[in-house]
């Protein structure tokens, strides 16, 4: 090969943060190429996708509305991924949070007190945690791989939600549409400002952001989680209890995903519908990695991801592009990120005599 990789011997801190930027740029570049191939002017399309949606305050507030569930899910996933516990089930945990929150809100339709909201949010959060708790239980007691169980639970959660929205929770006065009744005002997250759909979930998300930052960077528990992720055996030798950490990481990430879900139904949607989430839980996986499993990085990445969602809707309306462009960019970005991450540990070298020299160097090193 003409290009060879040479170990740096240590992590490059600069590349650690440059790599996501590089990945974003590469995604934009290949996106432009794709648009050109489809016969759209690349610059025009990128403008429609990424700039036009933010032209006014309404656009900015919509961006924040979309960023909230992604941010919450990704923060939780970051904690789990730091411990190398691969929770892929944020989508299911989010859906279950939405389902349980809705069930609670429909019970409390007539209760005109602010406490109603608290109950609704608590129900959703607890349900998300419980759903992830299933994966924790299956893993700690039965040694079942959490990737597979959490993915399976996503499909089960979706079917459960569909069952309830078509059955027990369907609005009796709703002309047989698969929707619940609208929640009472007391169960809704209050709106911020008169214009747009931005709601008090923003405060919850910012609070969570701060809490997760403290957890990961300033607490012993966070330290244990990181050690567990870096070296399971070492964590065992110093007496960190792996099973408890697995439980904690999964319950926390489930609770945050559940909170995201109940925030959607009690916030912008206001009722239970079949399409609570356009894949926020899956997007959060990309966001967690793109943000380097670091709360502040995740904040930036979730805003970018929300922009992709918003831009996808915009591009569909303005240029009739399929909305799947959002998912396509998500996947591309994660791919490019993983490829660019090679630069953190390795230095690329152009090689003229077919890599022999680098092999020699490696032997010497």
């Amino acid at each position: 090969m003409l290009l060879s990789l040479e170990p740096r011997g240590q992590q490059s801190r600069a590349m650690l943060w440059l790599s996501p930027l590089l990945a974003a740029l590469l995604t934009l570049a290949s996106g432009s190429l794709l648009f050109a191939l489809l016969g759209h002017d690349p610059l025009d399309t990128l403008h429609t996708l990424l700039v036009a949606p933010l032209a006014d305050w309404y656009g900015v507030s919509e961006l924040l509305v979309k960023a909230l569930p992604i941010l919450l899910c990704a923060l939780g996933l970051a904690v789990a991924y730091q411990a190398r516990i691969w929770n892929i089930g944020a989508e299911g945990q989010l859906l279950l949070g939405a389902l349980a929150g809705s069930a609670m809100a429909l019970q409390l339709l007539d209760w005109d007190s602010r406490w109603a909201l608290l109950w609704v949010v608590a129900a959703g959060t607890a349900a998300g945690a419980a759903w992830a708790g299933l994966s924790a239980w299956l893993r700690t007691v039965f040694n079942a791989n959490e990737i597979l169980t959490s993915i399976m639970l996503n499909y089960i959660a979706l079917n459960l939600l569909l069952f309830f929205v078509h059955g027990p929770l369907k609005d009796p006065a709703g002309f047989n549409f698969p929707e619940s009744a609208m929640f009472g005002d007391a169960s809704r997250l209050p709106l911020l400002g008169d214009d747009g759909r931005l709601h008090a979930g923003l405060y919850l998300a910012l609070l969570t952001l701060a809490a997760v930052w403290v957890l990961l960077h300033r607490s012993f528990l966070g330290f244990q989680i990181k050690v567990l992720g870096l070296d399971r055996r070492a964590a065992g030798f110093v007496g960190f209890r792996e099973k408890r950490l697995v439980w904690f990481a999964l319950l926390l990430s489930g609770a945050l995903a559940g909170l995201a879900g109940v925030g959607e139904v009690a916030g912008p949607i206001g009722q239970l519908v079949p399409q609570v989430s356009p894949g926020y839980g899956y997007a959060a996986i990309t966001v967690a990695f793109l943000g380097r499993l670091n709360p502040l990085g995740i904040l930036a990445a979730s805003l970018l991801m929300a922009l992709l969602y918003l831009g996808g809707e915009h591009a569909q309306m303005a240029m009739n592009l399929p909305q799947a462009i959002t998912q396509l960019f998500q996947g591309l970005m994660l791919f490019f990120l993983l490829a660019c991450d090679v630069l953190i540990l390795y230095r690329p070298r152009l090689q003229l005599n077919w890599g022999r020299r680098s092999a020699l160097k490696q032997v010497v090193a």
Partner: protein
Amino acid sequence: MDLDLLSNILYAMVRTGTPLLLVALGELLCEKSGVLNLGQEGMMLFGAVIGFIVALSSGSLWLGVLLAIVAGMLLALLFAAVALGFNANQVATGLALTIFGVGLSTFVGAAWVGKPLAGFEPIAIPLLSEIPLLGRMLFAQDALVYLSFALFAGVAWLLLKSRIGLIIQAVGENPDAASAMGLPVLRVRTLAVLFGGAMAGLAGGYLSLAYTPMWAENMSAGRGWIALALVVFASWRVLRVLLGAYLFGLASILHLVAQGIGLSIPANLLAMLPYLATIVVLVLLSRDALKTRLFAPLSLGQPWQPGH
């Protein structure tokens, strides 16, 4: 239960189990070489959409199948480049492949949703297909199901009887030793990943050209993930993969059976069954941690570069 119903159930079981069998065979070989590719779902969907588009626009089902295989291999190549070439984390790369494949297939297939296609028809083999009970299941299927039988035999022979199988397992168990013996570890792994991609693409093609001849976004509905569980369930043994695939096929058609006997359970609840079954099976099989570790290829999922 009468014989006809049972014969129909067995027939549907094999039909439903076939995509799982194809993906799982590919992933089995891939995991045997030490690579964990979680991107099956993405490769399958891309194969399904490409196969469908090609078959519908060219009028040739077999060309569709061929291009579905190529599509799966293309995505597998992407995985190999990042996970093997660039040494990235295999779990993350596989997830990226699935997310990318889902997005790509939805994007590419947006204009093709709901278009009708005359898919593969069952071919009944004279005489043999009239054997009571088993005849319909084994000898009245479509061409791709027969192909899956042949592919099963091929993979089984490859893994159990051939020198190539030994090489693959050596690379998967201990890449350092294999490399010291002069085996090209990365090349073997890349080929195994490509084979996995081909099989996933073929499975996707089976879905969109034979099983339900149409394209719908996310039509694989988690089958790629179930196939991954299937490989664990089979404790990496090829005969058990066959058994497991049909067992899961049976679990997925239980709702038809329930309707057949007149039980009325909401469709959404019955649709959970295959996923529930997967979890239950995983639990039963993984309970013994030692056993799982003994059967899994030793270097499964660990990045490896020559000369470290």
